């Protein structure tokens, strides 16, 4: 029932902060289905803040502006409702939850999203089949299922686990926050392969990254540079290469 010419995500003059400090100082960004957007920028520029605000982390405060998702005001929704509507954030720092197994966690999430859409809960055995198939995508061992969520996982395992969750939950809008950091080249290839396999014309992806390395594998349609809480430059994929060569300083001076 979408209105014509409507963006999937439309962020207007978004300002947000944490602990009494303004971090995002007016973000404008529009995303259409099928697109891949890279958000780059130096450490501390506000990339994770943007990702967390879009996912609904209550620790961050929205100070102004708006964001609509398929025409609906996004920032007033509870985080679980955003997820049920198809938004997924792969965390820069995935959270450890000792005592809850990965399998139970994944099945709960999968079923809650189905229930919110008016669908039946999945049969546990069918779910096992589904999950084993998705695990192949990220080349994860099934022993991972009986371990506590992210507890004692290596950095690479945590990042793969994020992509596994994404593969199981099949979001419409995926936000990957530095999913490449801490990965060796093999792991990077696996994670990127997983993301690419999940790309569909009606899905969109925001890839937050500090380096252009990942963008060799996940090729973006647009590249945005975030600095001091603002998007200071947008361009095509060649912008990433330019950043790789010249660094961020020349843009910071302009900001």
């Amino acid at each position: 029932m979408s209105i014509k010419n409507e963006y999937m995500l439309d962020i207007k003059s978004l300002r947000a902060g944490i602990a009494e400090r303004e971090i995002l100082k007016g973000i404008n960004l529009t995303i259409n289905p099928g697109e891949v957007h890279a958000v780059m920028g130096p450490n501390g520029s506000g990339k994770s803040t943007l990702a967390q605000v879009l996912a609904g982390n209550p620790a961050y405060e929205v100070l102004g502006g708006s964001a609509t998702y398929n025409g609906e005001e996004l920032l007033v929704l509870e985080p679980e409702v955003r997820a049920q509507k198809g938004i997924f954030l792969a965390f820069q720092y995935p959270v450890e939850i000792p005592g809850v197994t990965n399998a139970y966690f994944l099945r709960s999430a999968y079923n809650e999203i189905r229930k919110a859409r008016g669908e039946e809960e999945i049969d546990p055995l069918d779910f096992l089949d589904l999950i084993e198939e998705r695990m192949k995508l990220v080349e994860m061992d099934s022993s991972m299922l009986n371990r506590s969520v992210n507890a004692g996982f290596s950095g690479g395992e945590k990042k793969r686990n994020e992509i596994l969750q994404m593969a199981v939950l099949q979001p419409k809008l995926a936000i990957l926050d530095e999913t490449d950091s801490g990965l060796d080249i093999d792991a990077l290839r696996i994670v990127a392969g997983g993301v690419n396999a999940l790309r569909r014309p009606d899905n969109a992806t925001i890839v937050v990254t500090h380096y252009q390395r990942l963008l060799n594998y996940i090729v973006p349609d647009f590249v945005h540079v975030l600095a001091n809480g603002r998007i200071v430059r947008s361009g095509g994929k060649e912008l990433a290469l330019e950043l790789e060569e010249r660094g961020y300083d020349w843009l910071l001076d302009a900001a």
Partner: protein
Amino acid sequence: MTDAVLTQAPDSPEVERVGAPIPHATRDARAAEYVGQFGEFARGQEPMWLGAQRRAAIESFATLGFPTTSNEDWHFTSVAALLERTYVPVATASEALSARDIARFQFEGDWQTLVFLNGHFVGQLSQIESGLKVYAGPMSDALSDEARARIVERHFGGLADTRTHAFTALNSAFSGDGAFIHVAADTVAPRNVHLLFVSDDAAEGALVSPRNAIVLEHHAEATVMESYVALGNANYLTNAVTEVYVGDGARLRHYKIQRESINAYHVGSWYANQGRACTYEAFSFAIGADMSRTNIATLLDGEGSHVSLDGLYLVNGDQTVDHQTSVIHAKESCTSHELYKGVLDGDSHAVFNGKVYVHPEAQKTDGKQSNNNLLLSEGARVDTKPQLEIYADDVKCTHGATIGPVDSTALFYLKSRGIGPSIAIRLLTYAFAAEVLEELTIPAVRDELERLAFERFAVGA
């Protein structure tokens, strides 16, 4: 080296709780009524020494009276509510109990069950183990055999502190039936023993005083579960005492599940004495009763022994749950590990007091204690107090306590995956509790407690 850490969440409640004050006159009058009814308290045939113990105990109780909140051990828990009436021992057992009534309290696997209803042994639902090397049966039966009665006599009253603990004195005066378990040297009890203390509607107003003793000779092994359960919502007072002897090289697993009636009061005290190179695993699981108090004390009286004291309490509404543990390291190279976890909802109140005392000669002591509490509501309150007294210099003792709400980062992570707040909180609560349940080494017990815990959160959520 002493390494003491006390961590508390920034907004942890540190208000001291001195419950509703009880007028002295009321308290003393109530105590006098118990002393008064001792005269009418009818016991069948029993050994002279037992009668003598009862008389000494009621005298001690008359001197002590009921504790007030100015008593250091009762500072955070008021007994005012249970002084509103005088509880009276139930003279005869009702015959209304069937195997079906108690089926849901049983465990999977090879268990021997001794059933007590409102303080009386229910023979037709119980199995007595009476072999050459292992005895596990009701105290009443154990005393009827002359040789066995002598073993009982050697242990009964040897550890229970009737001089300073009013409720223990009260139990010793009015003690009803209970279990006697004796495992000979170098013997493993063939089955786990389940002591199932049931209260039904006939327990209204009852004083139920189970009295148990567990004796493991050297290198013996046994598992004993004490369950306190209710069929109904009667208001009664369970006041139980168990004396525990763990011989050299022996190993005892000793568990308690307290799921009394929501209107009941429960006081349960364990007194243990450990020999050399032995292991005592004590676990307390508490979800029932309006007010419950569990005392667990052990004396590490031989070198190289180990005690683990673990527990989980889950309370809501107006419940109060109080755990007091005491470990005395009297000899060298012993270890004591303690983990108590609590989940509180509604206006509930939890108290934890863990005493560790290290004698000058108890060098190379290794003591570890933690008490972690999860608050699910604004109204819930915790008073936690570790108490270390260390008189040896070559020891390693740590303790820590936490009180706080569900971790907001973890909560957001779950929500960001589409899981709504009530399920997310239930999952995190369950995960919090699961850590301590993992200490349970019998899968059937662990599974049952996990089920009870999960059920409990489902109601609370």
